[in-house]
């Protein structure tokens, strides 16, 4: 069965650069979530989309933006990168957006040098 696909798997950037992370949800899943997980930390909710519309926002810096496209894939854009942005970024999708389990991708490991 198809899973949530994230790309790239690893990304190395310099401070003040820009990064774009991509997420391809499971087919027919209509909700996408983005989470950030620092080393030894719990996943922190960033933002979610339901049917291509932003549905909720968490602790996402103003330097970050995200969108979901007509084919349901989502991109997380991160600008003016800081050292503290180094983390594992997960995308998850679910079928109805309410009361259903989340399926996670393998994550993108972002390292900011």
């Amino acid at each position, binding site marked *: 069965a198809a899973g*949530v696909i994230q790309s790239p798997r690893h990304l190395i950037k310099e401070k003040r650069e820009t990064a774009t992370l991509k997420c391809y949800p499971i087919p027919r899943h209509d909700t996408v*979530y983005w989470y950030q997980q620092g080393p030894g930390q*719990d996943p922190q*909710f960033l933002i*979610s989309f339901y049917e291509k519309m932003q549905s909720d926002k968490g602790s996402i810096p103003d330097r970050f933006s995200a969108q979901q496209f007509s084919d349901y894939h989502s991109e997380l854009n991160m600008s003016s990168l800081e050292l503290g942005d180094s983390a*594992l970024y997960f995308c998850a999708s679910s079928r109805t957006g309410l*009361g259903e*389990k*989340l399926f996670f991708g393998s*994550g993108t490991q972002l390292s900011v040098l």
Partner: protein
Amino acid sequence: SQQGEEDPQALSIQEGENATMNCSYKTSINNLQWYRQNSGRGLVHLILIRSNEREKHSGRLRVTLDTSKKSSSLLITASRAADTASYFCATLTTSGTYKYIFGTGTRLKVLA
């Protein structure tokens, strides 16, 4: 602050023993889920319990939910070395938003 707080934060047991992890949350919830994460990998869904349920079983997993105390527990029976991972609870609040909040996680180590 995080919706879910888990304890213990770290747990080390011998293979064959039972492992119990607890999760507390602050607001009203629609459901509570437990996830497992192997180091540096994506989270994997284990079990979901709805707010009107008190107990649920799945294989060696047993989850309880006490909405009056805003707490849940995950019991893994007859643990195996392969159960070594971090375990997180996640809550979906009743506020109608699409936001699952994860707790701080319990790092379980099962010694062979």
